[in-house]
């Protein structure tokens, strides 16, 4: 399968902003993801949902980009949630312990309707 260029769409409002991630989440996604993250935070949302339903491939550099988002979110007091991860990438989020800092949901609906996270750092 050829590489799929990354793109992101931002939607939502002050309570929850959603970043729909498309294509490969790798080094090439750096700029586009950064722009999308800024757009999401500019909405003033307290929760940012990363929707990986259409993300075909995530590598370690993509993981590092997500770490950067998490760090930024931590500084600004935002919660980050994830949804749409395949079982394999769910496993990777667990291995890397990203799942300790962002709740993982099956889909966007369940992520949007979930209660706010506890301040201690998320649920397992």
């Amino acid at each position, binding site marked *: 399968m050829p590489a799929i260029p990354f793109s992101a769409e931002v939607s939502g409002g002050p309570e929850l902003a959603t970043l729909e991630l498309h294509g490969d989440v790798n080094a090439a996604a750096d700029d586009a993801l950064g722009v999308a993250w800024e757009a999401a935070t500019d909405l003033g949302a307290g929760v940012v949902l990363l929707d990986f339903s259409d993300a075909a491939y995530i590598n370690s550099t993509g993981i590092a980009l997500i770490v950067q988002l998490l760090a930024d979110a931590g500084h600004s007091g935002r919660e980050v949630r994830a949804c749409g991860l395949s079982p394999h990438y769910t496993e*990777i989020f667990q291995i890397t312990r990203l799942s300790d800092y962002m709740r993982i949901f099956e889909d966007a609906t369940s992520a949007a309707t979930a209660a706010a996270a506890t301040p201690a750092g998320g649920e397992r």
Partner: protein
Amino acid sequence: MTFVDSIKRSVGRGPRTDTPEPSSDVAKSVAGSASAVAAAPAVTAPAVEIAPTDPLFAYLQAASGVVDAERLELDSPALTELRAAHIRAIVPLVAQGELIGALYLGPRLSDQEYSADDRKLLTTLAAQAAPAIRVAQLVREQAVEIEARERLEQEMRVATLIQQQFLPRELPQLPDWQVAAYYGPARAVGGDFYDFIPLPDGRIGIVVGDVTDKGVPAALIMARTQSVLRGEAPRLLSPAKVLERANEILLPEMPARMFVTCLYMVLEPATGRVEFANAGHNLPYVRTADGVIELRATGMPLGLLAGMDYPEHEAVLAPGESVLLYSDGLVEAHGPAGDMFGFPKLRDLMDTERPGSELLDHLLDELHGFVGEGWDQEDDITLVALQRTGGFGLAGLAPAGQILLQVTLPGEQGNERQAMDLVAEAVAGVGLEPAKLDRLKTAVSEAAMNAIEYGSQSDPSIPIDVEVVVRGGDLIVRISDRGLGGPLGDSEEPDLEKKLAGEQKPRGWGLFLIKHMVDAMEIETHGTGQTLALIVHLEGAGDASNPVQR
């Protein structure tokens, strides 16, 4: 020794030793003749040569006694010359029907004619002296031959010594490789050579060459060629550049009608990758799981023409595969019926799995069976065999495996995904459960990305290699780089808390992920380059432990 030489010796050079004095009168006559001609007793008889085409030659050979030079009627240049020197009588020296010399006698001191008794005495003397002179001639010829043979043998000893000094004293010890070499000089020393040259990047150069001609000149050229290759190989590394440079150096030094054929191969032991270029030498054979193939490469022999290019080629020797480099002494050996051993026979003999030394023994056994007893070896025979007996540092596994993929990719960012997809496609028939396949894909992607970013420095011209083998119940993916970024260090274990706190860089997950995605991971270093071997146990693949639960 030719007949003419004999005549010259008897007639021209050695009248005092070869010419008997039949009587004091005759002796005086000879001396008197000389004295009369030159007015000095020490002057020798005239050195008149009788050519085999001169009628006098045939006449003397058939004559039964002393020949009167003055009365003989022959249109003979030699006879004219003898008469001018006041020679009166010629006594032919004939042994076994061959004219081997002649005695020339001038006038007697008394000025009387040679009497019948004189002639009889001279004839008897000639009949007795001729065989003795012939024996002396043969002894002398033999002595000269012995001297020449000893000189030749000494030359051969020197040539052999030169060759032996330049052949490797020991074979390289390479893990997972069996290396064997054979050098069998012909009776007349030729110019075959082979060599193993350690290179600074951990690879090893392998040379097999053949100098035209034989003896000391060939041995000297062989020695010079090896010196050049040993000097240039570690500096230039590239086989094509090494041969190009060697040609430049050797061309002005090469004697007329001499040149050197040479195949130069550089082996990366850890990956099995070989780069090679050829200067007119026999093409190496490689035994693969699918049969025997040639490693094709062309180029002019060294020392023939200026400005030659030597195209460089690459190949990968998979575990279990062998390569044979050889000189033409083997394939051009003749059997009793005059037929040649030949390339097809050699190729057929390669087509069975034998470790390096066993392969060479097998080839030599077949050769000796082909040429039969009493074989007069015509040319040097040089054989170098390398078999890749294993890999991955996993001792004890079956030497051969089923190769599912061997591919080289440019060291370009993004090609890690291509590597991942190629491996996934290659292992489609192995029966990995989907989750395990997903883990392997991530591990391959991370290993390839590591090779590209560090080993190739993301330079597309610096390739990475991907190999997939099923062996001993394991699926093994090997990803090798050229090590431009230096060896992999013991990177700090990624710690998410530290990363979020800015105490660690966000990146650095690659090796961590790989370790969790496969059953085992090994790092091999070869020179500056490295190979990451990713190992997945195939037996009970569905029961493989989930890394998350470990």
